[in-house]
């Protein structure tokens, strides 16, 4: 009798796949910590703080053992998919390998236990890291002044646009509008609005690029800035970016570049040399710092000389004796954008990455990222329609145009690729590519992994024609099936509540 003849009885449940909420694991009296003795007599708390300012209890907070904490969070982690699990071709997010040495370095006690308000002479190591990263990023972007403070890309956009507005104000006219191409990330318009500007759209050409003539038509002395992305969200280089910058500059405006796609340019081309006045970088994309399940990132900005006085406080400055200090004496600064100097732990990792690769390594990373994206384009363009024809750099945008004929949408393809063991590409934008399938493999994937992904995408294209129901009802192999997100938003349940009358562990 072969193994296939054995009838396996269904298990009633699977403990790893059915982990409860931590609150449901709680049992009165369990604990996972052990504090040292106080070492002084235990005075009554209410003799130090009036009783009416104190709470009795933290109702609902869990009581679990250390091992239960470990089991709980280990089990939950297995329900996630990370770059370490497999190819994560999320377009525009640059999900590259996060080198392990950077994790070790960021955990050195001299960094982890550094209080940001230590006197400067006790913080020289931290300040040196900030300064060296500023120097490296200035060289990579061609923009001479870097502020490392912004916590994320969107925060960098906000910071830079505030600086632009402050500069216009100093010149005497703050202006009214910011021009944003229709291919831009949603954060761009949201950031411009937070700075008190109105947003005016610029239409892309049929090649998916900025149209200098359209920029010229829209560019007036009421326009504060143009916010563009280069390469843009279609993975295409804005070939006339220098002309576009000239048009904007001629009317006294600034050009802001969203640097989300800097992975296509390292060592090849520098925004500062294109005429860009300021930009942000996403260290968690281009410079390999972990995405952390959605943060923390870091969104440093680079600016030209004219915008430097407006950068947030403080700035790192070198003293005559070679030591570093934080300079707050900057009257035109937009002020602080966060409590302290930056997402330091992320900055350390990014500097370690740059120092590991060096100039040649960064350029090679870019070359390989572009090679990998073009390889995917080459191997899939006969089965998936390109959103826009022409060459691409680090990412490629297909659409579901052909698959729609069989009633299959891009979101169905996304769910089906999960069954093959991959994370799905980006599907939510750019807005100028309806049904987008935006693929960014990054440089750290091997050809073998790319081939597996390509084979899977080709198999899905065939399924769309032969067995579209399988694609439409995917995923089939995950712990959870497809969710009803609309119903979830209609009656949102955003927290756990103890069941009335039920005591945990009773």
């Amino acid at each position, binding site marked *: 009798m072969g193994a296939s003849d054995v009838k396996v009885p269904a298990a009633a449940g699977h403990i790893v796949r059915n982990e409860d*909420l931590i609150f449901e694991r709680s049992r009165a009296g369990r*604990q996972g*910590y052990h504090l*040292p003795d*106080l070492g*002084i007599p*235990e005075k009554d*708390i209410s003799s130090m*703080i*009036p009783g009416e*300012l*104190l709470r009795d209890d933290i109702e609902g*907070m*869990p009581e*679990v053992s250390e091992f239960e904490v*470990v089991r709980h*969070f280990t089990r939950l*982690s297995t329900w996630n998919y*990370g770059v*370490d699990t497999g190819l994560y071709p999320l377009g525009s997010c640059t*999900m590259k390998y*996060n080198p392990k040495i950077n*994790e070790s370095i960021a955990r050195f006690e*001299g960094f*982890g236990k*550094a209080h*940001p*308000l*230590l006197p400067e002479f006790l913080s020289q190591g*931290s300040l040196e890291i900030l300064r060296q990263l500023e120097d490296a990023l200035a060289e990579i972007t061609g923009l001479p002044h870097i502020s490392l403070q912004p916590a994320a*890309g969107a925060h960098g956009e906000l910071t830079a646009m505030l600086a632009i507005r402050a500069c216009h104000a100093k010149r005497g006219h703050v202006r009214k509008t910011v021009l944003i191409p229709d291919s831009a990330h949603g*954060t761009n318009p949201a*950031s411009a609005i*937070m700075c008190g500007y109105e947003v005016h759209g610029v239409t892309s050409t049929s090649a998916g690029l900025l149209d200098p003539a359209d920029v010229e038509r829209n560019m007036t002395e009421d326009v504060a800035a143009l916010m563009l992305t280069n390469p843009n969200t279609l993975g295409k280089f804005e*070939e006339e970016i*220098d002309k576009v910058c000239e048009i904007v500059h001629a009317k006294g405006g600034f050009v802001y570049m969203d640097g989300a796609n800097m992975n296509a340019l390292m*060592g090849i*081309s520098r925004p500062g040399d294109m005429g860009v006045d300021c930009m942000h970088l996403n260290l968690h994309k281009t410079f390999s710092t*972990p995405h952390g*399940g*959605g943060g923390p990132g870091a969104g440093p900005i680079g600016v030209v000389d004219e915008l430097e006085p407006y950068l947030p*406080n403080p700035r790192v400055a070198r003293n005559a004796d070679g030591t570093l200090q934080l300079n*707050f004496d900057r009257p035109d600064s937009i*002020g*602080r954008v*966060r409590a302290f*100097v930056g*997402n330091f*732990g*992320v900055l350390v990792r990014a500097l370690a990455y740059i120092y590991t*690769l*060096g*100039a040649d390594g960064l350029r090679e990373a870019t070359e390989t990222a572009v090679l990998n994206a073009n390889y995917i384009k*080459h191997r899939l363009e006969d089965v998936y329609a390109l959103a826009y024809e022409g060459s691409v750099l680090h990412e490629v945008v297909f659409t579901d145009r052909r698959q729609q004929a069989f009633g299959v949408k891009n979101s169905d393809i996304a769910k089906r690729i999960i069954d093959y063991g991959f994370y799905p590409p980006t599907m939510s*934008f750019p807005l100028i590519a309806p049904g987008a399938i935006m693929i960014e493999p990054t440089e750290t994937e091997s050809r073998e992994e790319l081939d597996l992904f390509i084979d899977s995408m080709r198999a899905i294209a065939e399924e769309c024609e032969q067995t579209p129901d399988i694609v439409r*009802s995917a995923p089939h192999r995950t712990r*959870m099936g*497809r969710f009803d997100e609309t119903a*979830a938003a209609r009656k949102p349940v*955003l927290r756990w509540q103890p069941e009335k009358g039920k005591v945990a562990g009773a």
Partner: protein
Amino acid sequence: MLASMGKSDIMELFESIPERLRLSRPLNLPAPKSEFDLAAYFRDLADRNRTSGDVFLGAGVYDHFAPVVIDHMALRSEWYTAYTPYQPELSQGTLQAIFEFQTMVCQLTGLEVANASLYDGSTAVAEAVLMALRVNKGRHRVVMAASVHPHYRAVVNTYLRNSDVEIVEVGFDSTGRIDLEAAALDGNTAAIVVQSPNFFGVIENLDDICAAARDAGALSVVGVAEAMSLGVLKAPGDSGADIVCGEAQSFGVPMSFGGPFVGFFATREKFVRQLPGRLVGRALDSHGQLGFVLTLSTREQHIRREKATSNICTNQGLFMLMATIYLSTMGRKGLREVAEQNIRKAHEAAARIASLPGYTVKFSGPTFNEFVVSTPRPARQLRDELAAGGIVAGVPLDRYYAGMDNDLLIAVTETASIESIDRLVSALAEFGGAN
């Protein structure tokens, strides 16, 4: 691979970048380092920071004990190499952890809904002010206690610098608490913002502040820079606060020279559609199983673009996770025990320092783990002299408040040993005299 595409040179793939825009030289960066050399290089930089010894710094960043289980769990790469949980089928771990975090923030703050975290405490307070202005549309005045963390106030000012909103700063009295009378809350006031414990470590009377806000139709915003205090202090939501937000660094997150940290944000259910940032909610899948998804995303920039409630895109996922593991480990009892140790040690230190000639505790209001000491000599000078000897006694307040040249903000957490407190007290005694 190139050959399979009919190309012979990698630069053929970069043809869309015009020659005139290409860099014609290599980047000028240090030569690449091996893993061994890299570690040695950064070890040297790390060692140039002084982080050991007797450090009594707080002011929004606190040295608390963090159980090692936090880092062991956070180092599982399924957590830290994933991204924002857009695809729920592959992200249930992160989504459930966020749901647990949201729940814990509600339990701690006494409020009904909480988001998935924000960048840090300062931006959380700034987002709270923006939210209050959305809720109270048409009102153009925000009252801000001068005892809110000066960096937080600075961030609020930056965020609002291009609005027509007037930010009115209100001072404090000899208790160190906000001078509520001077706040003059009126029909044009969108919000009153206080911090508790405030920057001086003094616990505000939130019952009175929230009642005054309610009477004026303003939202009460309570910032919390030392989240550990929530383990023992009355939940601000129970005092009537409309928004409670702040910094959760104290919950197992390293000080790391000021970031990354994790901002938290909670409010009343009726304001849920005005919340900034990501939210996770329960959902049913196609088999009828309960799970979690990102929800109410129509508030957000990727859908609403310029009409979004905030430009925020990510939260602080990994540090939110670390805080959740910390809170799970310490739990209902442990959090209170730690908080009580903070109170006992800080009050012990304050009492000993106050008994030294020339030193007084400046404010009479009740404090948690931080307090202001008036020093017999300029506090900055004193701080520098003690620091040279290995004791960082606190934060001098001269650069934050006019006329507070002789005031030092001292934090004492559960990690300060009694011997360390002894050394601080002796050094203050020794250096307190005239030059």
